[in-house]
C-alpha cells in the first residue's frame, strides 16, 4: 500500500496530483471572491516574476537583481504598442516578451565573466539605471511616454470575448498565461535545455569539457528568464481598465523583494513560483490585517524569515515541505542511505 503510494507520488506524474487541484482552486477562487479578483490576478503576475528566477537562479545558478526591470520593459513595450500604435495586445505581448528577452541577453553578457556577488551588483546597477533614468526621462518618451506615461492600453478580445472592463475574464487570462508559463518551464526543465542549464549550475568546467558552449547557454538562461518576466509585464500593461503603465512597480526595491521571496520559497522548484506569487501579494495583508503587525515591521519580518530560511531550510519553503513529505513516505520503508556512508557495498 505504502509502496504503491510512494511509487505513485514519487514518480514525475506525482506533480499532477498537486497541480490539478491547485488549478481547480485557481479557477474557482476568482468568482468566489470578487473583491479579491485584482489581488489574485496580481498573484499570477508576481508568480511569473518568481518563475523567471526559477529558470535563472534555480536551474542555472545565476543571480539577477533586475527582474522587475525586465518586467517593466515588457509592460512599457506592450502598453505603448497597444495604446499608441493600435496593435492588439495579442501582437504586442509577444513583441514585449521578445524585447525583454533581448535586454536579458544584454544583461547576461557580463555574466559570462562575473559570478556571485559581482554579478549581483552589475544586475542591481541595471535595475537602478532603468528605475531612475530610462523609465523616467523624456529621452525615452517613445517607449515610456514620460512624463505622463502610458495610458489607454485596451485589453484585447478573444473570439468575440471582450476583456475590457471584465475583471473576471482578465483574471482567467492572467491565470492562463501563468499556467502556460509553468508548463513551458516544466518542459524545459526535464528536456535537454533544463539538463544543460542545471549542468552549468553544478560545474562550469565539466560543462564545457562535455561539449557545452557556456556563452550560448548562459545567454539563453538570461533571455528565457527575462522573457518570462516580460510576459508578466505584458499582463501588467493591461491590468488597469484605463490601461495605464507607470514606472513605480518596477523600482529596484521590487526586484530585490522578488529575489528575496524566490529564495525564501525555494528557487530550485517550479511550484515555488505559485507560493512566491501568493507571498508577494498577501504577505503584507497577512501581517497587517490578520496578525495586526505594524506596517513598518513587514520588511523586517521578511528579512528575518529569509535569514531563518537560509539557516534552517537552505532549499527554501518548498524544499522543506518536499523533504518532510518524502521522509514521511520513507518512514517504515527501507532507509535511503545518506551520502558517502560507504555502506553501498562493492
Amino acid at each position: 500500500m505504502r509502496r504503491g503510494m510512494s511509487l505513485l507520488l514519487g514518480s514525475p506524474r506525482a506533480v499532477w496530483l498537486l497541480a490539478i487541484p491547485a488549478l481547480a482552486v485557481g479557477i474557482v477562487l476568482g468568482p468566489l471572491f470578487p473583491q479579491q479578483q485584482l489581488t489574485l490576478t496580481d498573484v499570477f503576475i508576481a508568480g511569473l516574476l518568481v518563475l523567471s528566477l526559477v529558470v535563472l537562479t534555480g536551474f542555472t545558478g545565476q543571480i539577477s537583481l533586475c527582474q522587475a526591470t525586465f518586467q517593466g520593459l515588457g509592460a512599457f513595450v506592450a502598453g505603448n504598442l497597444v495604446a499608441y500604435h493600435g496593435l492588439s495586445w495579442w501582437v504586442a505581448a509577444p513583441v514585449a516578451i521578445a524585447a525583454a528577452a533581448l535586454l536579458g541577453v544584454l544583461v547576461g553578457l557580463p555574466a559570462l565573466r562575473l559570478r556571485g556577488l559581482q554579478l549581483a551588483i552589475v544586475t542591481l546597477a541595471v535595475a537602478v539605471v532603468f528605475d531612475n533614468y530610462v523609465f523616467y526621462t523624456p529621452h525615452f518618451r517613445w517607449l515610456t511616454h514620460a512624463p505622463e506615461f502610458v495610458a489607454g492600453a485596451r485589453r484585447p478580445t478573444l473570439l468575440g470575448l471582450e476583456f475590457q472592463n471584465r475583471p473576471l475574464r482578465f483574471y482567467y487570462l492572467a491565470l492562463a498565461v501563468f499556467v502556460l508559463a509553468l508548463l513551458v518551464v516544466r518542459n524545459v526543465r526535464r528536456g535537454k535545455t533544463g539538463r544543460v542549464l542545471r549542468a552549468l549550475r553544478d560545474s562550469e568546467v565539466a560543462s564545457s569539457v562535455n561539449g557545452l558552449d557556456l556563452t550560448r547557454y548562459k545567454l539563453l538562461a538570461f533571455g528565457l528568464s527575462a522573457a518570462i518576466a516580460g510576459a508578466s509585464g505584458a499582463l501588467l500593461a493591461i491590468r488597469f481598465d484605463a490601461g495605464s503603465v507607470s514606472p513605480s512597480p518596477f523600482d529596484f526595491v521590487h526586484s530585490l523583494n522578488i529575489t528575496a521571496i524566490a529564495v525564501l520559497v525555494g528557487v530550485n522548484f517550479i511550484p515555488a513560483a505559485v507560493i512566491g506569487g501568493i507571498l508577494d501579494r498577501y504577505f503584507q495583508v497577512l501581517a497587517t490585517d490578520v496578525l495586526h503587525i505594524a506596517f513598518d515591521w513587514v520588511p523586517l519580518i521578511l528579512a528575518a524569515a529569509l535569514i531563518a530560511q537560509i539557516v534552517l531550510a537552505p532549499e527554501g519553503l518548498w524544499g522543506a515541505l518536499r523533504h518532510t513529505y518524502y521522509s514521511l513516505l520513507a518512514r517504515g520503508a527501507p532507509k535511503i542511505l545518506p551520502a558517502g556512508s560507504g555502506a553501498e557495498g562493492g
Partner: protein
Amino acid sequence: MALLEVRDVSIRFGGVQALDRVSFDLNRGEVLGLIGPNGAGKTTLFNCISGVIAPDSGSMRFRGRDLSRMKTHQRSMLGIARTFQNLQLFGRMTVQENLMVPLDARAHRGVVADALHLPRARTEERKALEKARAILHFLGLLPHAGTPAWDLSVGQQRRVELGRALCNKPQLLLLDEPAAGLDAAETAELAALLPRIQERFGVSILLVDHDMALVMQACHYLYVLDFGRLIAQGRPEQVRENEQVIAAYLGEQGRKREGVKL
C-alpha cells in the same frame, strides 16, 4: 600522423614553471601513461589539452588540426574527452542525467522544441536516454541511474565520470587519476575495464595515475613528468628501472644520490 601531437608546450604560474617544453605524440589505439610526483604538471598538461587553460607557448594538434584557437567545447566536439582528478560531476543531477549532458550538447533541437515538447524533442530525448543507459549498463551503473551523483561512493562517482566522458563520442580519453580514492579491488576492476573500453569504443587513452600497478598493467608506453619536464619515457618495464624516475619519486635525497641535475 599521430592522433595527438604536443610540441614544446610551456606554461608558468607565477614563479613556477608548471610545464617546460613538453613534447610527445600519442598514436591511435595507444594507451599512454603519464606519471610523475605530485605537482609535476600532469593535471596542468591535461588542462592545456582539453582547453581549460591556455599554454604560454607551444602547439598542440589533434587529428591534424591546430587546437590553439579552439575553445574547450569545440575540442570536446572534435573528440577529446576527459575525467577530473577532483571530481567534477553534476552533483545534484542523477547519474543518468550526468551522462545525457554530453549527448544533449550534440543534439540539434533548440529551446522551443523543448518548451513545447515537440515530437523532435521526444525522439532525441529517447535516443539520448537509450545511449546513456547502454553506457551505464556497460559500466555496471544501471542500478544507480536515478541516484543523484553526489550520493554515490567515490569509486562509483569515478565511474560516472568515465561514463560521461564516453558519451562525448571520444577518440581520445584523458583520464586524470581514475584510481585515486579506489581500494585495491576497485583498482583491479578499473585496470580490467580499460582494455574493454578501448575495444568497445575504439578510443586512445592518455592516463595519469599514481597507482603504479594500474599504470604498469594498462599502459603500452609511459612518459615521466617531473617539475614540468619530461624526464624519461619508454615501455613500462624500462621506465621502472630508470634511475631518473626512481630519483624523482624518492625526492631530494634520492636525486642527490643519483646525481640528477635539475
